[in-house]
């Protein structure tokens, strides 16, 4: 029997469009997530090398100073169970194959918040555990 993680699921949100990220973070926090926002690749890499690691990574494919693929790979290396959501402004372009065996969920901008919640609640083991825990 697995031990449910303590506290709300932790989300790391990486996007260069800072004002929109903050709005997204406020929505997610209202919905029970603990969100950290960073605006570039360097900050993301720094955050991923400190504990506690996030359960969920939401990253834009194009972020300043590096790219979403690198961030996702690094995060996956730290946490193989990490759930990854990639936000893209190129919905028609195939994703780089570097994400490994567990392909991330890709959502295009403009982001449909209801769809993001669906993804996070249905597909995330962490989120499921959180729900189970909160509903007793």
């Amino acid at each position, binding site marked *: 029997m697995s031990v449910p993680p303590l506290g709300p699921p932790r989300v790391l949100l990486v996007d*260069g*469009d*800072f*004002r*929109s990220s903050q*709005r*997204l973070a*406020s*929505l997610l926090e*209202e919905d029970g997530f603990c969100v950290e926002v960073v*605006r570039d690749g360097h900050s993301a890499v720094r955050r991923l090398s400190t504990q506690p690691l996030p359960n969920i990574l939401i990253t834009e494919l*194009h972020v*300043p*100073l590096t790219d979403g693929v690198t961030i996702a790979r690094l995060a996956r290396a730290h946490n193989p169970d990490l759930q990854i959501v990639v*936000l893209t*402004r*190129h919905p028609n372009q195939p994703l780089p194959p570097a994400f490994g065996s567990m392909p991330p969920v890709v959502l*295009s*901008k*403009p*982001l*449909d*918040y*209801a769809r993001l919640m669906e993804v996070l609640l249905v597909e995330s083991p962490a989120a499921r555990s959180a729900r189970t825990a909160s509903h007793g």
Partner: protein
Amino acid sequence: MQKETRFQELKRYVRLDERDARLLSEFGGLAQAELPRIAREFYDRIREHEDAHAVFTGEEQIQRLQKSLVTWLTRVCGGVYDEAYHEQTSTIGRVHVRIGLPQRYMLTAMALIRVELLRIADHLLGERAAPTREALVRILDLELAVMLEAYKDSFVERIQQAAKQEQRDLGTALELAEQRYKSAVELAAVIIVGLDRGGCIQLFNREAEQVTGYARDEVMGKPFIDVLGLEDGSGHVAGVLAKLLAESREGEPLEAALRTRAGKLREVEWSLSSADAAAQGIVLLATGRDVTDEKARDEHLRQNERLAAVGTLAAGLAHEIRNPLNGAQLHLSFLKRAIKRKSDPQEMLDATNVVGDEITRLANLVTEFLDFARPKPLQLKPVSLIKTLEHARSLAEASAASGGVTLTADLPGADVELVADAAKLTQVLLNLLNNAIEAGGKSVCLRGRRGPRHVTIDVEDDGPGINDAEAPIFDAFYSTKEGGTGLGLAITHRIVTDHRGTIDVDSRPGKTSFHVTLPLAQAAGE
């Protein structure tokens, strides 16, 4: 007086006279019995020498020749030395030549015979032999002289034949070269037209036939320009041709479309040159390359490149549009939720403001995109450099002040007037100034100077510099700046190059300098 024959001349030279003839005749009669022995010994001696013997075909022939030798000896000592005699000796000489008897054997053989005859004379005549001996020496030398003539004749003939052969070979070679030349002209993948002094066609190769659709005999002797419809009405082609026909030199390459037999136009690049070989009266060779298909291919390629560039730009635009759309969308999601739970009105008002901002951002993006992709034509007028620099500085002053950046202008000592689009030039300066102000430094300097034929404008900041020196910062949608459209520098670059100027950048931590040069005057018609 009858002309002396060669034989008479020879006889006179060796002093062979009637007395000699009589002495020889007497000797011939006395020596008759000895002659077969001489002949036999003669041929026995030949048998000892390979090269000499090689000319004989067999024993039978030798027997026959021995008899001939006896006949000859009898004739030599016959006392009659007339033209018939000379002819017979010549014939023998020619036989020697024909059978390939080397001259050295003829000379030595004659020595052999001479020795034998003199010995016989001594033997038969004793003390009275001297005059006969002299006569014998004379007649035998005469024989030799005549026979050697045959060798000389043969030699001359051989030289003549060799010369003739050489001539024939040369002719063949020339013919071959001409054939090669003809087929080279004929099969060349270029149009080759030969023109006479009157500009009429005298040579029309296969490629010319293929491109024009005219058969050779249809155009022969007809005026080049008229037949191929080369003149576009300007008289240019005719002028060039007339000049070349008059001056006979290499001409400039010439582009002139020709009209085919079927009436189609083909683009041809001509090169005209004087013909050295005046065969068929050709003084000018026009070689032409049909570039119609090539040009169509190039145009197609350019069109593809344009489409690819448009595709790249469109993708860039689509990419950039999605961030403001995303911002608006997320704030609308928030608003929906806030309205449902009747949140703080100020919070909701802030969110609607953000949506408005994002819409403005979208509108700016689209406007800038059009500015870049399809700029309005330049409104060129004389512009004061100092006024333009000061105007740009005053426009950037506010943002510099709010960013805590000191903005200075370093103006030229005397004003410079340049021809430019003042509004677009201001846009360039403002773009560069705003970039510099936002670069993260403390001071920005705008500097203008004049050069001999251009002005230079520098915008310098003391910020941390551009990260990647190789970054394509002037490309559309290459931007690392938050909230930027990614078009600012692309538009700046476009305006500068539209003015036939240049823009480049030097950047290191603490000093980044954008460097613009603009020509003082714009070329006419542009």
